[in-house]
């Protein structure tokens, strides 16, 4: 167990002040590297199976740009609001940080709502599902895995908000906020590639 080399320099953010928390942040970056590989495998599967729609619709026939754009801007904005929250974390301004965190959560919920609506359109109205074709299996699992990650992220953020209320700013709570910030930005980056390689490519190429 590392001896806690506590850094008392006020120029060092709270989340980096204890050795334990520094290691956790590094560990989380390594985990994000693993997640990049995880999503890349899902992307590879999607791209390989994309041209195999069997009897079901193709991507060009299925995807609609409007809802995709709304989701993209919701998530992109939530990434910005998340980064604002980290700014106020470092400014040690609890009130403002919580406001920006809640905004982030709201935008995330909006994103999920749209995605549930989109999937509902496909499943209930178009009558397709993962059972329809290889292409649709790939689509639902790739985009669904991302959506599941967002859902877990919102649950996680809720837990952190509760802990912040109870304990205020400590090196550990600061680290927790920073880490979930990393997670949240990462999900936006993944969505960037989904937007590009699934939806846009699927509609025009």
């Amino acid at each position: 167990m590392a001896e806690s080399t506590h850094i008392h320099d006020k120029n060092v953010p709270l989340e980096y002040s204890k050795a334990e928390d520094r290691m956790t942040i590094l560990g989380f970056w390594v985990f994000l590297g693993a997640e990049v590989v995880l999503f890349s495998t899902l992307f590879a599967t999607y791209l390989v199976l994309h041209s195999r729609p069997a009897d079901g619709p193709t991507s060009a026939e299925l995807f609609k740009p409007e809802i995709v754009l709304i989701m993209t801007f919701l998530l992109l904005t939530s990434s910005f609001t998340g980064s604002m929250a980290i700014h106020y974390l470092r400014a040690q301004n609890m009130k403002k940080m919580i406001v920006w965190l809640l905004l982030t959560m709201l935008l995330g919920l909006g994103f999920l709502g749209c995605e549930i609506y989109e999937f509902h359109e496909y499943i209930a109205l178009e009558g397709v599902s993962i059972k329809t074709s290889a292409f649709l299996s790939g689509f639902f699992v790739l985009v669904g895995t991302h959506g599941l990650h967002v859902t877990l992220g919102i649950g996680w953020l809720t837990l952190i908000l509760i802990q912040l209320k109870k304990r205020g700013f400590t090196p550990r709570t600061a680290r927790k906020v920073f880490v979930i910030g990393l997670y949240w930005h990462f999900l936006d980056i993944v969505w960037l590639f989904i937007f590009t390689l699934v939806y846009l490519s699927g509609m025009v190429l």
Partner: protein
Amino acid sequence: MKLDEFFVTGEPLIYGAYVSIAVATLGIIFVLTYFKKWKWLWTEWIPTVDHKKIGIMYIIASLLMLFRGGIDGMLMRTQLALPELKVLSSSHYNEIFTTHGTIMILFMAMPFLIGLMNIVVPLQIGARDVAFPFLNAISFWSFFMGAMLFNISFVIGGSPDAGWTAYMPLAGNELSPGPGQNYYLLGLQLSGIGTLATGINFLVTILRMRAPGMTLMKMPIFTWSTLITSIIIVFAFPVLTVALALMTFDRLFGSHFFTLANGGMPMMWANLFWIWGHPEVYIVILPAFGIFSEIICTFARKTLFGYKAMVFSMIAIAGLSFIVWVHHFFTMGAGAGVNSFFSITTMAISVPTGVKIFNWLLTLYKGRIKMTVAMMWSLAFIPNFVIGGITGVMLAMASADYQYHNTYFLVAHFHYVLVAGTVFACFAGLYYWYPKAFGHMLNERLGKISFWLFMIGFNVCFFPLYFVGLMGMARRMYTYSPGLGWTGINIVATIGAFGMGLGFIVLVYSIYYSARYGKRDVTGDPWDGRTFEWMIPSPPPHYNFAKIPQVSRLDEYWYLKKEKGFKEAREVKEEELKPIHMPNKSHVPAIMSVFFFIAGFGLVWEWYWMAIPGLIGVLACMVIRSFDYNDGFYLSIEEVKEAHKVGEGN
């Protein structure tokens, strides 16, 4: 569902298994009760986050799995000893080669090496534990529950039988209905989570918890091999996670990733499996290389020849390991362009490996060799592994591989690299680090007997198999016709297999014998070692080092002994003691893994009423952990002084 679909019936061997499971369970319960060890188990082992205890548990589990996997192997060899034997039916044989492969690679080799990494690496870098002790416990229990889930298929529901590679469409619902294949998917998924966590843990540990002055190029070579292995784990295991999940979706939810119908591509399974699978075999061989390097240096009494080259060659191997995977399915029709590229990369990867062989030989040259059991395993590794490696280069030639693929030539190749590489390293590491973990030596005489039995048996079993493969005998065939000229070789191979079995029995006996009569390790440095794990008592106090050592060069401890003498090199003055911060124990990892087991078992049988609560239980454990702000405890200077005096009882 009928009871005989749930419990496997109709096979005498399986009834035998029921009986032995029942007897063993009762036996364990009896022993624990008789020696009043329930509390000890519940307070000292189940909630432990101590890397040394976790490592020991990994190794105990691997030895049990080696037993089961070995029985599988011996059953296969018995069935194949003569043509058209009826020891095992074809379906039974399929189950056995599936479980043999899966258990040996994933539940024997991986945990054995990870167990050794756990015990040794924090000690080698002068640390008190790993970066994330709680996560380390989760890694072990996930592995253990995943292994349990896989093993229970034998008696409940039936084992998977599509090979350890589980190719589609054979592994799909149409051709492999029932729970068997689901056990494979869920058992490996659960264990895989633990392994990924281990990779992250050791990566951060080695990067951030080394003793002051220990730069990367002053680290022990086994620690280097662990670092590189951890990087491979982090980048390879997520691919397996996805691949298993996608096949699970195909089987449970009717998706079409790898099916024949509705646009699925069975070959994509093979592609994804081997994108993981090839780095996986380097995950099991690089730590082995590290172990051999340590042992050869210690018992040749020389610094490792070409330390830098050894490091860079492992880095090169790790990098290349991600671009060779198609060589596992050259014959699947990817085309000449693809096959040529992967042929070249595969041949390239033999170069850094060759560099290492020469460096080991040059380390031995002019060394003062001490023939301990650990050294014998290491010396035997060199020629045997080279045989495996050379046949690997033969297989790398894609056009030639059309002849060798899936014959016994391939089977012999991978057993030569895996057994002579990984298994020999596990045994060598066991003998080498056993005194450190337990405080007594393993008996050398019995060790030598088991070595010769196993090593000779191994060669008698597998060397002839190259030839019967070239004669056309395919792998995974449960019997063969007489008159093909294969019989003689198969008889010889079976005799060799029994030799290996005998060697294993002697090894197990020597563990028991040494526990009772073994020589105590009183100094903590029975081999005159070179690295920090030998600087502390055997077994180490739970905080490892009373004082974190300072490092200025490679093999610092060795030079300290030379310069200051044995006693002074290991001395810790009272003024140097400080309070030591240690992590808390926790039952949450074990409990969380039980919930994972429940969820997995539910998914195997498609009992969502069981699976969903299981997953909720897992999440609940994570929530509990999130709200746990207990930061560990401090050992005061007095407590450290007391423990230190007891440990250094010389």
